[in-house]
């Protein structure tokens, strides 16, 4: 018999510590506003992240207006720079990171590991409010003189703090302040997620019985706790350069012919700090998506996840290696070119555990009992887009191959599929999957499926051709490509096609938002554990789970969460907390 989780047993170790009394809210304000309940904090995170995400998405629509129709005369070059810079930062940090860790992390971790709440609820509450302030600081940069920064989401100095770049005054200062605040707020949340997984698991819940969603969010949190400090330091140093004239990143330099007072700094040092955070950031977004998608596929294919231990170690391995690949973003930066050998090798090595995860998802489908529910559709779509985004990374990661395509549209296609759209499809899938738990009702499946097909086909049609025009030499971050003798004229028609598709996809997102509101009051009643899942969040006494998650006794865990379609057992699922004596066999008797 093959390995099963941490094999089923009726032995549950005794509690190591007694119950700790939770904080109980006494007023509306402490219950719904300054709430210390992880589930309420999760909703606050998700609401804020989606709101700022809508701003970021709208910006991509405006950007495409310029890219598809460069002579429209509506957007000027400075505005175009601001659009893509703010779009990138909003989507990567303020939407995706906040959504996966602050949103899903807060909601799922305590429920999945079997805890009443996070380890430090007060700090958890602070985390959200600091995040909210950082979002407001970021938004305020739209209203200051000079507008928000237009330095690209990478904020490379020296240009980010020099006058040839829009928003080099207050814009960049507010952006850096927002990032510093975000990191502070995140650290408060992150410590919670990590400590809760390590210390607050219920009896019987070993690490090797954690659902992969938990593993993904847990490892992403560890990455973030190690990676974000580099961004914090880089942000502080650039603020000092900008505000009080230090020269961390600024060498002797001219600004339109006039010497500035800087001397001796190195612009490349910022790039190292930025990418030491920036590359793990890709996995901070991707690992939770990997974990969640594994759970969705296993549950909706009614089949044990293939290679659980491999999946766990791949997540851990990807997380570890992701700290030694950062300079693959800097092959053309002017750093010592000999670094290229090391970073190309580590980067391609990371492709191996990633590929193994993809095989395991596919092998989970093999001989399954595949239910094409809405969450499953998003998970299946995720595989297609993520594989595409992943393999194009093999071009970008291999030094010599990256040199010609660096800073072309190829890179834009690559990272949007890998870390933009693929994780976003998982977000949509997860909302469909856990909405019944959060509200007691299903999201409307028809609307959901229409939304899925438009988003999946639309975004794929949108980003796939970008790789090809990138080969052709179409650069990214160009306001207007104008005339050249090597870029094929007809790439303009491709860019127009992409723009039109973008607007269709953007419009389709309204369906999703409408669905969330409509189903809240009139969706089909889901009842308890509607997907017949095994993990603990579905085993709560009430739906949605109340304050303290598990009202009376904490659940005891006897097995891993992937016992689907076990031979000889009557049902096709066995919840983690079902005592082995209670399992009903096909013969009708109990085990």
């Amino acid at each position, binding site marked *: 018999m093959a390995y099963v989780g941490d094999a089923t047993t009726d032995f549950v170790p005794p509690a190591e510590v007694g119950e700790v009394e939770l904080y109980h809210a006494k007023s509306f304000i402490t219950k719904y506003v300054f709430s210390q309940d992880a589930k309420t904090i999760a909703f606050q995170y998700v609401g804020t992240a989606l709101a700022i995400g809508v701003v970021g998405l709208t910006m991509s629509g405006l950007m495409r207006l310029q890219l598809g129709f460069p002579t429209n005369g509506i957007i000027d070059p400075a505005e175009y720079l601001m659009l893509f810079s703010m779009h990138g930062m909003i989507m990567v940090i303020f939407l995706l990171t906040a959504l996966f860790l602050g949103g899903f992390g807060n909601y799922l971790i305590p429920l999945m590991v079997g805890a009443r709440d996070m380890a430090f609820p007060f700090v958890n509450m602070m985390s959200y409010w600091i995040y909210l302030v950082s979002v407001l600081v970021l938004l305020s940069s739209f209203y200051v003189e000079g*507008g928000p920064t237009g330095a690209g989401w990478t904020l490379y100095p020296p240009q980010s703090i020099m006058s040839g770049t829009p928003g080099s005054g207050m814009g960049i200062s507010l952006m850096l302040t927002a990032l510093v605040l975000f990191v502070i707020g995140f650290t408060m949340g992150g410590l919670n997620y990590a400590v809760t997984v390590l210390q607050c698991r219920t009896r019987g819940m070993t690490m090797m019985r954690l659902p992969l969603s938990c593993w993904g969010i847990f490892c992403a949190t560890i990455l973030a706790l190690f990676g974000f400090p580099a961004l914090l330091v880089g942000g502080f140093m650039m603020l000092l350069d900008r505000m009080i004239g230090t020269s961390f990143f600024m060498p002797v330099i001219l600004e339109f012919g006039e010497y500035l007072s800087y001397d001796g700094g190195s612009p490349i040092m910022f790039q190292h700090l930025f990418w030491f955070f920036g590359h793990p950031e890709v996995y901070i977004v991707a690992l939770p998506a990997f974990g969640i998608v594994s759970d969705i596929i296993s549950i909706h294919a009614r089949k044990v996840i293939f290679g659980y231990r491999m999946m766990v170690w791949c997540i851990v391995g990807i997380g570890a290696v992701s700290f030694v690949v950062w300079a693959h973003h800097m092959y053309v930066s002017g750093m010592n070119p000999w670094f290229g*050998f090391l970073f190309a090798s580590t980067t391609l090595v990371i492709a191996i555990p990633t590929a193994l995860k993809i095989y395991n998802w596919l092998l989970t489908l093999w001989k399954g009992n595949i239910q094409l529910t809405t969450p499953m559709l998003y998970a299946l779509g995720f595989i297609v887009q993520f594989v595409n985004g992943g*393999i194009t990374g093999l071009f970008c990661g291999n030094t010599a191959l990256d*040199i010609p395509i660096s800073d072309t549209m190829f890179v834009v296609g690559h990272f949007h599929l890998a870390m933009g759209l693929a994780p976003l499809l998982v977000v949509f899938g997860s909302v469909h999957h856990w909405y019944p738990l959060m509200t007691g009702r299903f999201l409307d499946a028809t609307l959901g499926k229409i939304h899925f097909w438009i988003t999946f086909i639309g975004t794929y049609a949108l980003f796939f051709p970008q790789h090809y025009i990138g080969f052709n030499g179409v650069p990214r971050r160009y306001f207007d490509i104008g005339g050249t003798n090597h870029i094929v004229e007809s790439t303009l028609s491709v860019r127009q096609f992409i723009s039109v598709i973008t607007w269709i996809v953007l419009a389709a997102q309204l369906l999703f938002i409408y669905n969330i509101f409509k189903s809240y009051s009139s969706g089909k009643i889901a009842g308890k554990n509607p997907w017949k899942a095994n993990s603990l969040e579905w085993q709560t006494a009430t739906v949605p789970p109340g304050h303290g998650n598990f009202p009376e006794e904490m659940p005891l865990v006897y097995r891993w969460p992937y016992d689907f379609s076990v031979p000889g057992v009557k049902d096709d699922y066995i919840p983690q907390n079902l005592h082995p004596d209670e399992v009903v066999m096909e013969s009708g008797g109990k085990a």
Partner: protein
Amino acid sequence: MTWFIIFLTGVLGVAFHLWALEAGWWWTPIASNWTFIDTADYVTFWITGVGMTLVIFFEAYCIYRFPYKGEGSKSEQYNPESVKLETFLFFSTTSLVVAMLLPGLFAWGDFVSPPEDAKQVEVVSEQWTWSYRFPGKDGEFGTTNPRKWSDENPFGIDPDDPKGKDDILVEDTELHLPIDVAYIVSSRSKDVLHNFSVTQFRAKTDAVPGMVTSWWFTPTKIGEFNVMCFELCGVGHHTMRGMVVIEEESAFQAWLQKQPTFKQSMADAGTDAEDGENIVLSEASAESAEKGIAQ
């Protein structure tokens, strides 16, 4: 239905590839010695392309072949792991990754080792234009100093260094180079990051203020090639263009003779203070860039 659309995604992906090839949305014809980079790119393209297609078709097949069989049914298989299969997948993936990595590393080995007889040319970048410098008769560049930039000395050359006197200065965005001669291209920047890039040469490196960066190549085709800036450098980034003209050695020498040396240029300073701004784009675009700067 779902399996069919996923299947179609694979088919359309392959079809789009053929269409792109036909339409020319593909690598530009190479004009330098870096054919090995292109070869490595093609190797990766085909390995990943076949892998991608297999994954999509396998997924579509699973959805088609193993649909939900209704209430009370179960999956046909319960297989938490298979050491044999996982080992096989691990080693086959690893060997494919090595097959993609190795050509890349060999190409990179060449990239970081310029030939001994390579000649020198320098690109000086500033918002938003290029100028160029050749080392002159002595074959060596004069020392530069970032504190010496001025209107009279737009290349920041140290006037006291005798090696700099014969340096040839090109205050124009058009650069001429002879065919089949290896050149090391050094880059300096007066202000922010820039990147002097010609798509057909396949090679580039950022220009970074405060340091000198370099790369090398051998042009292999006669013709005119567009230079574009490939590192975001502010509001005029898209207007930062230039031209590289690759020609026979004789034509190149004739062009080079017309360019002033540093010594001549210092002597002329003051009488000709025109800056070398040369914007290739339409006037409308340049105007809008200026409007952006003014904001």
